[in-house]
């Protein structure tokens, strides 16, 4: 933890960088862990995701065979709400430092800015993956209990939700990854714009505006294209388990679109963080 840039380079050359990164990781973990909001926000993510998923599963009925509903997607509807909380968490992870001036201390302790961002991203991703897994599993469990009561029965061609089923497992794992990518997208955006308010508005605008715009567009071709580039619509394609051919984009390709958005945001964020004064 040498504050001087010249010695830092020397350290990197002889392998001390790993120690620094571990330390940075530890520091970021401590910051995230002790910030008052983190625990509450993660708990809120899980609660909202499960509650909305459960409510949706309770509301949608499947009266007969061929009702065309996707039980896995229904059970995981809560992700659309939970992602907003994850976005806040990720934005605050960096914007709070700018807001309080802490970022100056952080960058004095670890002058390599990309190391700081990488450590933040790692810690955040880990935390989001963990809570996302909890949220997704709980949602699926709730769906498994609720859906058969609404006509999603074997008689109508629906097996109970289980992770042993390939598409269901893909949808579950994909949803967890989706949340992690949303966190990275938000982190990158917040690093780029620094201010929490602007970052949140940008991320939520990016997520929610595309689907709303898609509803208005009158031209099927444009609609299709919009759904393919929209971070939320394309990313959530990973949850689909029925009628895969009719979807505008494949499950993993859709998640890839979101990953591209997240990578672009992180890249912009790190470039700006690297180039400008704090």
């Amino acid at each position, binding site marked *: 933890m040498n504050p001087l840039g010249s010695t830092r380079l020397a350290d990197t050359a002889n392998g001390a960088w790993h120690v620094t990164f571990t330390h940075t990781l530890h520091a970021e973990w401590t910051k995230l862990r002790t910030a008052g*909001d983190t625990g509450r926000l993660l708990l809120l993510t899980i609660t909202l995701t499960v509650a909305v998923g459960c409510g*949706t599963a309770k*509301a*949608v*009925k*499947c*009266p*007969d*065979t*061929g*009702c*065309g509903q996707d039980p896995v997607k*229904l059970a995981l*509807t809560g992700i*659309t*709400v939970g992602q*907003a*909380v994850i*976005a*806040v968490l990720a*934005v*605050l992870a960096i*914007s709070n430092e700018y*807001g309080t001036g802490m970022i100056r201390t952080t960058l004095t302790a670890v002058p390599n800015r990309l190391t700081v961002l990488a450590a933040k991203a790692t810690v955040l991703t880990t935390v989001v993956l963990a809570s996302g897994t909890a949220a997704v599993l709980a949602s699926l469990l709730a769906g498994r209990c609720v859906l058969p009561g609404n006509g999603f029965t074997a008689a109508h061609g629906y097996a109970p939700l289980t992770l042993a089923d390939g598409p269901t497992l893909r949808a579950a794992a994909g949803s967890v990854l989706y949340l992690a990518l949303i966190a990275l997208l938000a982190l990158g955006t917040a690093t780029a714009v620094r*201010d*929490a*308010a*602007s*970052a*949140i*508005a940008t991320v*939520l*605008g990016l997520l*929610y*505006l595309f*689907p*709303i*715009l898609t*509803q*208005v*567009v*009158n*031209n*099927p*071709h*444009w609609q299709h294209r919009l759904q393919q580039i929209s971070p939320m619509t394309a990313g959530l394609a990973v949850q689909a388990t029925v009628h895969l051919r009719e979807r505008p984009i494949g499950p993993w390709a859709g998640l890839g679109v979101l990953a591209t958005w997240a990578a672009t945001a992180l890249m912009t964020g790190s470039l700006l963080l690297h180039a400008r004064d704090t």
Partner: protein
Amino acid sequence: MTTAPTSRPPATRPAERDGFPRTLHAEWTKFRTVRGWVLATAGALLVTIVVGLLGTAAPAPGGRGAHSAAYPKGPGGEAVNDSFYFVHRTLTGDGTLTVALQSLTGTADTDTGTDTDTGTGTGTGRTARSAQPWAKAGIIVKEGLTQGSPYAAVMATGGHGVRMQYNYTHDTAGPLSKAAPEYPRQLRLVRSGDSLTGYTSTDGSHWTKAGHAKLPGLARTVQAGLFATSPEAKQNTATGTGFSPAVATGTFGRPALTGNWSQSAWRGTQVSGDAGTSGSYTNTTKGDFTPTSGGGYTVTGAGDIAPVVGGPVMGAGFTVENFLVGTFAGLIVLAAVSTVFITGEYRHGLLRTTMTATPLRGRVLGAKALVAGGIASVTGLIAAAITLALGEHSTRGRGFRILPVTSATEARVMAGTGLLCAAAAVLALAVGTLLRRSGTAITLVIASIVLPFLLATSGVLPPGVSQWLLRVTPAAGFAVQQTLPQYAQVLSVYEPSTGYYPLAPWAGLAVLGGYAAIAFGLAVVRLRRRDV
């Protein structure tokens, strides 16, 4: 802030007289001098316009000029479908037309591509042999053969008994409105000046009034005769609602005429040339009429004589609210600015100075709300006015139809968009005051306004749940932008996914306003009670 509570009233009372304008001025100065906020407000204006124009920028499916540039307009200025098969002669002056309707049947292609057929009772074949609920056959007196001209008609319908309808939007149930059809059924339409009266009878001697219409300025010479028409068949399947081609056939007895009728033979015309946006002929049937052995006629037609409504039966066209889709984008920016308007003061400690200058905290928050709400409402209003003007011009140029609205409705939508933005801004300010953190406050406001809308309109949830979401959440406010009309006599999908809000425009806005008011009240209470 060390003044003892007992000494505060005398200290502040002299300042109260001109206090509020001064506080307001101070808050306005704060807003105006922060460059980021001014830029963000300009950005909100711009993004509302740009997103609105981009959302409606797609070329028409059939290319330029593929559709007629406008919906036909009825006498009231509303968009109408005026498509039916008309067997007519010219009537000059007063007169009466009496005819027996022996049957009303229909044909519908129920093959919509899905293998389930839950919509009709037949279920076995590809076609159903019963008339659609709003299939119509009867007598009509109409000013001319052009679409949208004034008319009055008495008719039997497939599922709603005898009706008297006139000028597209008016619909009166006849004396036997029960769906049980008793045929033959006598229909009579009497024209006397600009007043038309419809009668119905089951035996031809006892006549009951079905309805009365006054068509001011109806020309002396009109077209009158028999008609048949049928809107598309609506089928509710488990996967959603489908519409498929349907035609209606009315079998009439010999028409009895009194008055000055032209001596020419009955002529058949498909009014409007096609079946309009809500009807379509099947592959095998076209509009036609044939004489029967008893001197009567069999008339077959498709289309509807009714106002255009939203949903699948609207055809390729835009509504005023479509252009305002950018309101969501503008709202997000305005909510962010309004939140930071207060949380920024917390962050920089400016609030302590503000509260020292104006110790009445409710007054400070009131002034802030007035400034943030005022700026948001002006931004929303201007953005809506510009977007509507530009959007309507450019979409019309690309061959899209635009559902016409009255100037009063357009003014309501513009003013409503302004107030919508104002309510969201006040809500954001209040939530920002309560939470003191910009990030969480903005997320709460944006998510509570935009997310319910998204969930309700995406079609994932059943219509009932969607409607409740748009009744009880702040997203209800968007109802103020709805211009789509709803008529009981036109079947469509009247659900949030097709642009229909469960609440009336101002009631919906009042829900959002209520949220803003409650949040503002809580914020004032909290601000008074806690230390700065």
